[in-house]
């Protein structure tokens, strides 16, 4: 490449080629998003045609989005999604943070055993224990409830592992000083450790919310009444409906479901990249 004639910096042949490749790849990457939004703005006769154009001739957004919300209780699905992901995250933090603190800063019998169990738990994808969880919830009569959506995820061994790693980096003297001051262990967890663990907590929160907002497998197994559907179940139910071939409203529904996380991602990219990259270590 360097044998080629020198052009002004930033205009070399290599950089032109590189940018062309990036633009092409970006176009393919964004195509489904762009096409989804564009279709959600078009009238039916502009969708079921082979005359492909991006921008609608007739603006049909109001009709499409209104009929998406009318055909299925889309608002309800979104609310379910918020309730389920928020409950899961709250339970996970409430249970994982104190345990991670004790694993990191206290000496007690069974500590190694517990940490071993956490490490082993990291190896097991929840899909593998879906069958017994389903049988168990069935026996308890809890299938098809909010509890069924939340219970299997109340404990996050990944959360415990991550928080423990973070707490390991916090000096023990800080904890000892708080203990001398007569603070209870629980008070130390919430008033000393948690404020110091902001980055780890936010990374874990993002990881958890993204995983559970987008989860399809477990809600599919756990619930059958559409009042309990989470957004992924909702959009599939809509597709399977008679309305499934009316692509305008369907793409409107997909847009509505994809939008919250994409918007959050665009607003807080760095945190999201950290949070999601953690998923790889699960």
């Amino acid at each position: 490449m360097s044998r080629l004639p020198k052009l002004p910096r930033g205009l070399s042949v290599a950089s032109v080629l590189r940018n062309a490749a990036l633009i092409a790849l970006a176009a393919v990457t964004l195509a489904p998003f762009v096409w989804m939004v564009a279709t959600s703005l078009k009238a039916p006769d502009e969708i079921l045609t082979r005359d492909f154009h991006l921008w609608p001739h007739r603006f049909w957004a109001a009709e499409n989005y209104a009929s998406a919300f009318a055909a299925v209780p889309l608002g309800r699905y979104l609310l379910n999604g918020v309730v389920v992901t928020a409950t899961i995250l709250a339970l996970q933090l409430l249970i994982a943070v104190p345990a991670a603190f004790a694993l990191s800063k206290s000496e007690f019998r069974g500590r190694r055993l517990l940490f071993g169990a956490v490490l082993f738990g990291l190896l097991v994808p929840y899909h593998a224990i879906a069958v017994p969880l389903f049988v168990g919830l069935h026996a308890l009569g809890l299938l098809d409830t909010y509890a069924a959506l939340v219970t299997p995820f109340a404990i996050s061994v990944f959360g415990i592992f991550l928080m423990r790693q973070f707490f390991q980096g916090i000096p023990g003297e800080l904890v000892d000083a708080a203990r001398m001051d007569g603070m209870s262990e629980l008070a130390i967890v919430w008033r000393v450790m948690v404020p110091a663990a902001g980055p780890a907590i936010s990374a874990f929160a993002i990881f958890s919310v993204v995983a559970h907002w987008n989860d399809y497998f477990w809600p599919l197994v756990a619930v059958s009444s559409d009042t309990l559907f989470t957004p992924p179940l909702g959009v599939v139910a809509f597709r399977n409906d008679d309305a499934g071939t009316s692509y305008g409203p369907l793409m409107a529904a997909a847009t509505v479901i994809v939008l919250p996380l994409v918007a959050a991602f665009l607003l807080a990219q760095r945190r999201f990249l950290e949070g999601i990259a953690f998923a790889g270590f699960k």
Partner: protein
Amino acid sequence: MTEMSRSAALPRQPVETERVRRPHEERAAWRLVAPAAMLIILILALPMAAVVALSLTDYQLGAEAWRFVGAANYADLAADPVFWRSIVNTVVYVVEVVAGSTALGLATALMLQGSSILAPVWRTVFFLPVMASLIAMAIVWEFMLHPTFGLVNGMLGLVGIAPVNWLQNSATALPALAVIGIWQQFGFAMVLFLAGLSGIPQALYDAAEMDGAPSAWSRFRLVTWPLLAPVTLFVVVISTIRSFQVFDTVHALTKGGPNKATEVLLYTMYAEGFEFFRTGRAAAIAVLFVAAMLVLTLTKVVVVEKRIHLK
């Protein structure tokens, strides 16, 4: 990001100096871990034991009676051509997605490395599919792959390629799902590669250039590729684990069809367990699934160790 991921990736920390256990401290610690310990037993350990136990029975959900059948479920699976088809499809899908997303992730990371002020914009664009609800985007892909009104056939028509019914043709259905998988995953590989690239000292490139490695390709071959090898291995293992769990696109778009062309392991387990309610058989598939994941994850642990030692 590198800092955080490295600390998260460290599997072990040096053992703290043994401290004296004080009884009241021990009780307090137990109170803190009790909820977690109980839930680990109830939601992880018991189900794990149950899945192994169930796989040795002929239990069917809702059935009154069940009996111990030993390894019969495993023997049945071994004799079932659909199950073998499912394994082969899973492996083919995993190989395609891992190769595609790793190559594309590496290429993108290399193009972004040292590039202009636009790098963060590109990064955001390529990472977007990782974030978006896969199931919603799968439905968008289904529409784009529509035989008559789909954008994909429309574009291919411009260059004279006849329309294909991608998801209903047994030759194209699995590759089409693999393309969706690559589209969704390569941004994730890119982020890991970018982190790896940022750890390679510029001095090494300068040295390579002085030692007579003038072209970008020779610098890549002599410096980037060998130093990135542990990260590459890591990305391959992680992508393997992720694509091994393919389910959403199969369930939403093809239901394992046409003619079992997209029957994959997790989908087979789902159908056995939750559609036909052959619980014992589904449990046996789950056990095999966990075994495969264990092998993959242990490989990952080994890779992580190696990566840390090299740094």
